[in-house]
Structure formats: C-alpha cells, structure tokens
C-alpha cells in the first residue's frame, strides 16, 4: 500500500496538479472549452466581427447587396423574393442595410471600448503602482466622471457637436466608459503588487516599468477584458439610444441605431423596419454580454 502511495504515477499526478494550479489561465481555458454557452456565444461573436469587417461577403446573398441602390417605388414594402427583410422608407433593400449597419454599430462599440480600455490601463496602472497622491488624484477624476449618468453625460457633450460620425460618437462614449474599467484595473494591480513574485522581482532590482510590463499587466488584464466585452454591448445599446434621440450618428452613416431611429414614425404600419435591425442589434448585445458573463463565471471561483 505504501508503495502504491509513493508510486511514480501518483507523484506525477500530484506534480501536474500543482502545476495546473499555478497556470490558472490554462485551467480556465479547459473549464471554458467544456461550456457550450461559451463556444456558442464565442462563435457568434466571431461571426458578427466578420460581418462587421466584411459586410460584402454576406450582403449579396439574396439580391444585389448594395445598401445605397434604392427604388422609391418600393418604399417600406414588406419582405419579397430577393429582399428577405423588405425595403426601408427610401426603398433600399433592408437586408443589405442591416448587414452593412453592423460595421458602424460594432465599430462604435469596439472603438469606444478600446479607447476607454487604453485610458483605463494607463491610469489604472498609475493609480495602482504610483504613490498615494497620484492615486487619490486619479480616484477623484474617476469620481467626477462616474458622477455622470452615462446617457445624460453623453447627451450634454454630443449636443455641442454639429457633425457626428463614428469616431466622435465613440470618443464621447469612451469619455464616460473609462472610469469603471479604470477601477477594475486599479483593483487588480493593487492585488498583484504585493504578490511574492513581484516583491522578489523588485528585490532583484527590476525596474518599475519592467514589473508593470512583465508581471502586473498580464495578471491585471483578464478581469478588465471581460468587463470590456460586456461594455461593447452596452455601448452599442447606448449608440442606438443616442441616435434615436437625435444626438448620435447621422446619415450617410449606416448603423442599426439610425435604422431604428428612422423606423419610429412608421412602426405601426411597417413593423419590419423596426423588427429586423432591432433583432440584429439585440442579438449582438446579448451574445457579447453572455460571452463576457460566461468567461467571468469561469474565472471567478465564487460563482461556481
């Protein structure tokens, strides 16, 4: 029995298990790969990205696929052969428009979140690593921006712009999106900072920048990336809401928000104008939130 307990296989097994606990990301990956929801939403997210990056691949499936070729005679007609989603008010093919709308909607979402993430990483690392004064200055600035309700803040700022395209709207949404992410980065930087391996690296004479790059950032990145995925969904909904109010994107941009905003007056008589862009938008946001959620669940052992 004692032999069996000390057998090489057993030792080997123990060895791998300790190794696995050090390599948490890999463990998470294994955990995630077994979750159908993760695979499903991940696949959908990739498909939507492809849709946004290359709408031409999908737009021509049923008809000509050009969102700007329109016949006014067909204004707001329902689904017909070659036009599965029908026509919009201008008589353009709605399917082609919805497919091309993914670019601007996801573009605003990704750009705003990316900008916010960049700011959050810089400020979060600064607040977490630098001294108390820097930390509290950054905390106060964060408080100021968290004090704005997202929608109202964006309305005030966008109201003063006369031309609003994808970069402007994304920039304004980033302005109100970075504080939450900064808090998350700061919290994880703080928890990493006192870890044994960082203390050791410091005692070996590693520079602050080396520690941030080599130890702090890789460990602080995952939680904020998860939050970023969910934020992309939130930004897409916010863009639609702002565009609906009239302070978001403007034509000739093609976005789901613009299509939904244009459908509001004719919804009662032509529901398809609201339903199809609405379905695509809601599905995208749902996929992104669920995807981020699943990863967060897998990372956080408390939820298991």
């Amino acid at each position, binding site marked *: 029995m004692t032999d069996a307990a000390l057998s090489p296989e057993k030792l080997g097994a123990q060895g791998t298990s300790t190794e696995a606990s050090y390599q948490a990301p890999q463990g998470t990956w294994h955990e995630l790969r077994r979750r159908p929801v993760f695979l499903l939403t991940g696949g959908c997210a990739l498909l939507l990205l492809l849709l946004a990056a290359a709408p031409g691949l999908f737009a021509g499936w049923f008809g000509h696929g050009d969102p700007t070729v329109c016949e006014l005679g067909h204004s707001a007609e329902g689904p017909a052969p070659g036009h599965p989603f029908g026509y919009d008010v201008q008589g353009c093919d709605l399917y082609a428009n919805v497919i091309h709308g993914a670019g601007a909607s996801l573009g605003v979402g990704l750009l705003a979140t990316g900008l916010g993430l960049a700011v959050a990483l810089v400020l979060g690392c600064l607040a977490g690593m630098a001294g108390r004064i820097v930390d509290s200055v950054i905390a*106060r*600035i964060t*408080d*100021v921006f968290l*004090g*704005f*309700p*997202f*929608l*109202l*803040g964006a*309305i*005030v*700022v966008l*109201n*003063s712009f006369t031309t609003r395209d994808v970069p402007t709207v994304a920039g304004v949404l980033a302005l109100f999106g970075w504080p939450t992410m900064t808090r998350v980065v700061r919290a994880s930087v703080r928890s990493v900072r006192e870890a044994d391996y960082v203390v050791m690296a410091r005692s070996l004479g590693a520079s602050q920048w080396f520690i941030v790059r080599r130890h702090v950032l890789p460990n602080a990145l995952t939680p904020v990336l998860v939050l970023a995925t969910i934020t992309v*969904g939130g930004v897409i*909904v916010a863009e*639609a*809401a702002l565009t*609906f*109010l*009239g*302070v978001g994107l403007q034509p000739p941009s093609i976005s789901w*928000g613009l299509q*939904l905003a244009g459908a*509001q007056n004719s*919804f*009662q008589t032509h*529901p398809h104008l*609201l339903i199809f862009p*609405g379905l695509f*938008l*809601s*599905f995208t*946001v*749902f996929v992104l*939130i*669920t995807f981020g*959620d699943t990863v967060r669940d897998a990372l956080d052992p*408390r*939820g298991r």
Partner: protein
Amino acid sequence: MTYLIRRLLEALLVFFGISLVIYAMTYVLPGDPIAALAGDRPLAPSVARALREQHHLDDPLLVQYGHYLAGLFHGDLGTDFSGRSVAEQMADRWPVTLKLALTAWGIEAVVGIGLGVLAALRQGTWTDRTVLAFTIGATSVPVFVLAYTAQVVLGVRLGWFPVAGNTDGWPTSYLLPALCVAAFGLASVSRLVRAEVIENLRADYVRTAVAKGLSRRRVVGVHVLRNSLIPAVTYLAIDLGYLLGGTVIIEGVFNLPGIGQLLFQAIRAHAGPTVVGVSTALILIFLAVSVLVDLLNSLLDPRIRHD
C-alpha cells in the same frame, strides 16, 4: 463623523468637477451664441453688446464660470432662446417624472429580487438559466424598441394599457412606461441578489437555523433574505438616479409630460441651453442621491466601516 465630512467634501469636489466639465462643454466651445440667437439677420451692435454684457461673455473664463456657479446655487439653470427660465419650465413637470421613476423602481425591485431569489434557490437548473437569459435579453433590447413594441402590441392591438399620455392618472397611465424603464435594470438586480442568496445559503447561521427545525420558508424568507438584500438595496438606491435619466426616452415615446419629455423635445428642437440646463439638474440629483445612499448604508449596516 469624520467619514461624513470627508464624503461631503468629496461630493463637493465632484460637483465642481461636473459643473466645470458641463460648463466647458457648452459655453467655451467655438461659435458665438449671441450671433446664433439672431439667426440670419445680424443683431444691431448695441443689442449685441447689451446681450454680451448681460451674459458676461466678455469677462475672463474663470469669472464666467463663477457667474455660472453662482447661478446654479440660486437654482438658475439658464434660460432658453426665448428667454424662459429652464428651472421654471421644469417646476411643474417633477411630479410626472417622480411618479414614473418610482413606479419603475418598485417594479425593478420586486421583480428583480423575486427573480434573483428564485434563481438562487433553483441554482444550476433550467429555471436559473432561463432567468439569466431573460434578464440579459431585457437588457439587450434598446429601451425605445421595447417601448414602441409594447405600445403597439399591449396598447394598440390588445388594448390592455393606455397608449400614451397621462390622462388616466397614476397608476394606469404609468404602468406600461414604468415596465419598459424597469426592464433594463432587472439583470443587475437579479444577479446581485442571486449571488448573495447563494453565498448566504452556505452560511453557518443557515445550517443552525435548519438544524433547530425551522421551516425552509422561514429560513429563506427571514434569515437569508434579510442578509442578502443589503447590496441589492445599495444598487437599487443608486439606480434611482439612473432611472431619472432613463425616463428621457420613455417619456418621449409615451408622451408623459415630465422632465424627461422636456429634455427629449429640447434635443429634437436643437434647444441647446434647455438640454444643458435639464441635464445638469438631473446629474446633480443623481449626485445627491448617491451621496445619500452612501451615508444611509453605513447607518443601515454597521459592518460597513469607512475608516
């Protein structure tokens, strides 16, 4: 007490920060507001000069900001293009917005907490997953799409609710709009409650309560729930501030004559000063609510210490 003072000072700092940002965004940007006031036909130089003086436009920036702040402290949120005070326009609209926000808040609290407890008690089953999918789904649909759909289906086709306006008074006219406002926040509330209940179900005091023979209903309903609701209450209290913002679109769609509708119509009419004034008021209320919540929290739960 030290905490109280610190929190108030902090809130003051945030207030100055917010007002400065709003001020910079609206008044410092290029373009001459007086020329814009006149439209195509230029104003007589004397009139323009008088107006510039009246609005302190020739003073240094900081002095201008000082005048703006002094106005804010006196409840002056600016005047619209035709000279009416924004604060005055808002005065008789408050009851509508408050009724809508509070109704939505009640729905969000009751349904959110209910769904959260249900999901926690059936953890890992299809009920749990359905609750999660349903609440995330409700978050994913833009609020105006939800509002139009509800308006046409439940209001026009089925006739269960009044379609628009507040002629039927509270609660009939407010139920459907409030449901639409509340749908967005359900996911956060139910998830928060679910996590807390699951955590508390594992606690020692629950085992003790079960061991001494209490019914499950009493254990969950009294012991677990009471301890699980603190984070939810905090979240809900802060959410009240957000709900005030969320009423903008809903009041516009359902034609409820509240603050949100004023903002909605002002944005549509490109009435810049009104937009800024109303938003500023709503943002300041949000700030006040979040400070109050913080203070209430430390009163409610002595375990929360801030020193």
